[in-house]
């Protein structure tokens, strides 16, 4: 039987990566995609709530997911996307999937 490691909650993950240049690059690209997706002229910060603050509907979330998958050459399973609430969550998830792909 396959053993699945239990992931810590999104907000506690990847704190260690926050300083790295790689993380900053991911952050910039994710924020750029979000700014392309939202019609609201708001400043996107780590704490921005994606659905509520950016008024992105489920269709736009899907398109955003597809765009991020292609940009970073990763697969983003639906359940991982469903866990995402804030911009930080999204950046952490993308970073984590890139890391998982490399491992």
């Amino acid at each position, binding site marked *: 039987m*396959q053993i*699945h490691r239990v992931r810590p909650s999104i907000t506690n993950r990847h704190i260690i990566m926050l300083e790295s240049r790689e993380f900053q690059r991911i952050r910039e690209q994710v924020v750029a995609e979000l700014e392309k997706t939202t019609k609201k002229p708001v400043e996107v910060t780590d704490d921005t709530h994606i659905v509520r603050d950016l008024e992105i*509907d*489920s*269709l*736009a979330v*899907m398109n955003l*997911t*597809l765009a991020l*998958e*292609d940009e970073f*050459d*990763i*697969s*983003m*399973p*639906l*359940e991982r996307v469903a866990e995402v609430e804030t911009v930080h969550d999204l950046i952490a998830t993308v970073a984590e999937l890139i890391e998982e792909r490399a491992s």
Partner: protein
Amino acid sequence: MNLLAKFDNLKSRLQALAEVGHNPFQIHFEAIHSATIGILDGRETMLFGTNNYLGLTFDPEAVEASCRAVREQGTGTTGSRVANGSYASHGALEAELATFFGRRHAMVFSTGYQANLGIISTLAGRGDHLILDADSHASIYDGARMGAAEVIRFRHNDPEDLAKRLKRLAGAEGGKLVVVEGIYSMLGDIAPLAELAQAAHENGAALLVDEAHSMGILGAHGRGLAEAVGVEDQVDFVVGTFSKSLGSVGGFCVSDAEDFDLLRLVCRPYMFTASLPPSVIASTRVALARLASDSGLRTRVMANAEHFYTGLHALGFQLGPDVSPVVAVTLETTELAVVFWNALLAAGVYLNLALPPATPTSRPLLRASVSAAHTPAQIDAAIDAYAQVGEQLGVLRVDGRVAAAYAG
């Protein structure tokens, strides 16, 4: 604490709808007279929102078989097939479905929704990958959620996008199942199935095709899109429903997969629900035989679809990309769509109103379904109603050309 408070937003949207007229999601017909006529508010209304593609709900032989089954076998089975046992007719229908599709195995479910829920959640388990078309029906998404597989989506009807996503999963352990539909229920658009099948098989994935809206419509024998494009041998699982072209209720899956019958003991939406009553099985068997033997039904429904699609297209309405029995007009705003839908109802035409986010484009749809039972005169009357309402609401210009604001 009010558990329903989380739906306050929905409540206010419904109240806004009620102010315009009928609630499009709670229509009650006082009577149904035929496959194409119902009574609403005491008036005869043409039914263009039924998915009754072959018009078999009033097929005299099917009705008679159903009545006879009730008299001879009672009103219900009162339990699941696993716990209470099957009736002879359940097995007979499964054998007939397998024969019709030229497959070794068939499994009948109590609804089409449960067929997708059960088959998808059971085939793709923990450690497997499900790769879904992004515009998949709710039953496919719910099946994906019920199972424990990792779910990846690809861009709607885009074989290259599917191939790209499958290549990313090349090193992944476990099985891969690609799920697509033949005709998509909202816009009536048709999948590029040959290319999708090639992408799936070149990348080591199994393929499931939901032919709910294409069985009885496409293919020389009515077996659906896979037959029409000649790729049945590349489709590992076909899911379908009885509640559209077969005029009853229920769903099924057919396959050549070895040990397919094991699914009967692990598939929860099959095991833990009551089986279909004998009357439903009886009418479905008659309808399947009729579908298989009467190619005139397919000719008629597609001719009617062409008639309706061409008529609305000539008026300037924005339609889906393919001619199929699902004919959907895209409108710009929900407010306009709700008023348009009510005006069509007042003109004696009933169809489905689909509002975002339940539409693939974030825009509202007036979704009609055409039946083999519609007469050319009924279709002309419906087109006239669309034209009149379209002009009244400024969607169409009076001279028949598309209003500038709408075209933009």
